[in-house]
């Protein structure tokens, strides 16, 4: 019986190694410097890279976080410190609901809200769609983290005559800041790899793009386009792009976990 359970555990973990192994073998073959610094080349032309996608991914992720981090953290603070009434329950329910919404639907949201009125695909729309994924996750982790701070700590601060807002920011939030940061990093790793919300918001781009109101390339989009294309050399590019993507995602994941471990 034990052997059967053990087999279950092995089968559960096995795909991780299979996927990482294939990524290393098939993606490693194409992993050259040109991949990281060149623009995509047309089919059949050797070389070429995904540099614009890497840049685009960073830009869209940064754009998302610029307004989503403060929004989510402040909302989390409200829920943890003042969130007792019906309004707070409604906000919690809203965040929970959004967490469960499939990411493709956030793409529809970005499309209708920004692409239709602006009449073009843009980095803005991509960031709007990604925020809808980022915000609810960080709201809930921030609140959960703050709730682990004992009430006695808050009371001690207030008893010393520190104003409540200052006590919240300087003591309560600071105590669990590494935990909140971990939540932010994990959410960032998640939106870094999201493809579905970008399909019809940021759309993708073959070239460099510095304007945020224009279609923007992203690594996950490139992996998708290359993977479903009929060309052999594009398939290799898809594997290489996937290797770059997974490296970024896993590094951030591991960094986030190391951060919480050091706290303890």
């Amino acid at each position, binding site marked *: *019986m034990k052997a059967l*359970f*053990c*087999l*279950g*555990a092995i*089968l*559960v*973990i096995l795909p*991780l190694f299979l*996927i990482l192994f*294939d990524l290393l073998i098939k993606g490693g073959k194409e992993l050259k410097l040109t991949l990281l610094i060149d623009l995509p080349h047309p089919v059949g032309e050797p070389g070429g890279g995904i540099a614009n996608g890497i840049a685009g991914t960073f830009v869209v992720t940064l754009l998302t976080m610029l307004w989503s981090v*403060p929004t*989510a953290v*402040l*909302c989390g603070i*409200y829920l943890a410190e*003042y969130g007792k009434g019906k309004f707070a329950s*409604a*906000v919690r329910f*809203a*965040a929970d*609901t*959004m967490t*469960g*919404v*499939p*990411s*493709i*639907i956030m793409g*529809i*949201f970005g499309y*209708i*809200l920004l692409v239709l009125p602006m009449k073009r695909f843009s980095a803005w729309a991509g960031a709007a769609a990604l925020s*809808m994924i980022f915000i609810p996750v960080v*709201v809930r982790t921030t609140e959960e983290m703050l709730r682990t701070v004992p009430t006695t700590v808050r009371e001690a601060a207030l008893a010393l005559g520190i*104003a*409540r*807002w200052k006590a919240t920011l300087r003591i309560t939030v600071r105590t669990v800041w590494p935990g909140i940061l971990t939540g932010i990093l994990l959410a960032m*790793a998640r939106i870094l*790899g*999201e*493809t*579905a919300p970008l*399909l*019809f918001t940021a759309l993708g781009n073959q070239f460099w793009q510095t304007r945020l109101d224009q279609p923007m390339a992203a690594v*996950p989009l490139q*992996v998708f386009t290359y*993977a*479903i294309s009929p060309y052999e050399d594009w*398939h290799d590019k*898809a*594997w290489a792009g*996937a290797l770059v*993507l*997974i490296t970024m*995602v*896993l590094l951030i*994941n591991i960094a986030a*976990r190391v951060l919480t471990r050091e706290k303890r």
Partner: protein
Amino acid sequence: MARKTGGNIKDLLFERTTGAFAFLVLFLAVLLFAVLLRESIPALRKFGAAFLVTGTWDPVLEKFGALPFIYGTLVSSFLAILIAVPLSVGAAIFINEFAPPWMKTPVSFLAELLAAIPSVIYGLWGIFVLVPVLRDVFMKPVTKYLGWVPLFKGPVYGPSMLAAGVLLSIMIVPFILSVSREVLATVPQRQKEAVLSLGGTRWEMLRIVIGQHCLPGIFGATILGLGRALGETMAVTMVIGNRPEALLSLFQPGYSMAAVIANEFTEAVGDVYLSSLVLIGLILFAMTFAVNLAAKWILSKMVARASRGI
């Protein structure tokens, strides 16, 4: 909560500011729902409830029905559950009850990494590794000998409902595993010891304790995994075959709700076409909403029971 004593303008301001951002989050959720509803009205007007049970998807004649997509989403998700639940529950029992303590952290760490892999990478791996292997090792032999069973009818192409189900099962395992482990951990130690002290074997202890205590929780974990599977987009789009037909055979290509939105949204010309795709999105939204709510309800009841120590 705001105290009215001196110097508390700033406190009030802080509460109001954070409150405003909380309101913004609530507003975004309402806006999301409103936007989906508004944009799906043209399709709702034109097709009504028949949209759910109509099997045609014809952009040229502007005749749309969601049946093949709803069918594909449900079948691939149930297939995923069927594979993932026994594996994850078995793995959870092994990690919690049998594994040496040093193994627990690395295994749960690896499972979390599995959950962190982007969906498009699962899809890539699915296209080039999983689908060929499934086709040659499983589907071809099975259809050769059992092809008369409607579920296994050929011809075998590769991309299929089965491929989508298997890939989805790999993707939802980490979620079911972690919730199952939490559920198993709620069993009071003294209950396990009671069974063992009465002369029960470890296996009997597990059977009694899990049967009595953990079934609702594991059911909750299953529903949670189902919620994940229903909305999964990229991986499914890449391996399901994308044929808008509801076929009984698991070896045939199918289509899912998320996949049709992903594939056709940018090329949807005309209000009715676009609106029909948004309506599919709204139905998907409603489905995942209901499923997640059910999972939360079951699991919170479980936690409440555990905290009472029953």
